[in-house]
């Protein structure tokens, strides 16, 4: 069974012999594509107007975080939301400052970021530097392509330690 998607990175499918019947695998894929194109168009948009549906932050924008009083009570993990903009930067600031005072190290999971604006990136940069001053650390794990792209555009990828070299294989 040949891949029809012209954009696919998979040429010849070596598992095709396993069965011939077609599976309905495309629904998920479509979702991903939709998300990606959506994010691409909205990418680093400075104008606060963000296209509707995907984000539904009527009230308080939530920023998922889990603190891990990991065995020594010193590491915390913060999972970034897909869309980060000026509207939730204050909350993120508050969150991170609080975590920074309670923990030695913060791992920020940036794998799900589809759109991030300059305000958020600057916040992350400042906090990362603040952390260094406090002999603590903030590291950005699994930055998504969008995250890397945006920080490169702003010229701070290296300072955030998310440049391609660093993120490719960690």
């Amino acid at each position, binding site marked *: 069974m040949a891949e029809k998607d012209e954009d696919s990175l998979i040429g010849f499918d070596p598992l095709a012999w396993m069965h011939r019947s077609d599976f309905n695998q495309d629904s998920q894929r479509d979702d991903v594509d939709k998300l990606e194109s959506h994010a691409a168009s909205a990418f680093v948009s400075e104008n606060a107007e963000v296209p509707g549906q995907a984000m539904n932050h009527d009230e308080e924008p939530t920023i998922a975080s889990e603190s891990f009083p990991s065995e020594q009570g010193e590491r915390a993990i913060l999972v970034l939301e897909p869309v980060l903009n000026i509207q939730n930067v204050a909350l993120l600031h508050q969150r991170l400052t609080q975590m920074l005072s309670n923990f030695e190290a913060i791992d920020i999971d940036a794998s799900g970021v589809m759109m991030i604006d300059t305000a958020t990136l600057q916040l992350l940069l400042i906090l990362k530097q603040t952390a260094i001053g406090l002999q603590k650390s903030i590291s950005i794990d*699994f930055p998504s392509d969008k995250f890397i792209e945006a920080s490169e555009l702003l010229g701070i990828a290296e300072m955030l330690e998310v440049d391609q070299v660093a993120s490719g294989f960690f």
Partner: protein
Amino acid sequence: MSARIVAVLNQKGGVGKTTTSVNLTHALAKLGKKITVIDFDPQSHLAVSLGVVDPQKSGIDRVLLEGVSLAQQLISVRKNLNLVVAGPRLQEIEQLMDGGARSGDLLRKALLDGHRDEDFIFIDCPPSSGVLVANALFAADEILVPMTSDYLALQGLSHLMGTIKKFESALKRPYKISLVMSRYIPTRRISKEVLSVIQKYFPGQILATTIRETALLAECPSFGKTIFEYRPGCRSARDFTALAKDFLEGRMM
């Protein structure tokens, strides 16, 4: 009660068989399961990763070559976790071509005897498809295939499935096969595409949690520590705990 025998298998090297064997078994042991893990690779990376480094120490090699009982070769390495090292002579088995059919059945027989009380026996297979892997396949009830998400790994998986199907028809029994996405790099587009191809062929057989590529996982073997000892609570430790739960509860993608 008889143990579930799980072969951690993929003839491709570097896909995460040993990393999975070390950290999944430790995660299961921490969840209270009794585990024996067999280092079935003459390179002994599993033992090293668990902090056991004596290259002269005998293990599964003597069980297979001299009929020593498995129980005699168990080393308690962590709470609930026993290790059987490869031993310096394991490589000889790979050369045992003349023994014909019988040389493939050594491990299965060795695991039959004795009344041990493990919940699981894991076999960390070597990256080959010779006599050792035949032994693992004869012995195993289940196969756990660590998979990386690159194109050549798909190619390898195709080859592996061909081998497994041959064994299934020779032994007249199907294996329970599950896959674990290991060394996953979520930021690469090819990762998602490979995963979606695998999902198409193995619906309901890919463990729900993916193990991501992290520096910490690459670092811990050199200290003889599992991820739970090297950096407790880190993301990779949590990945493996979640994977262990998936494994026990049959939670698939």
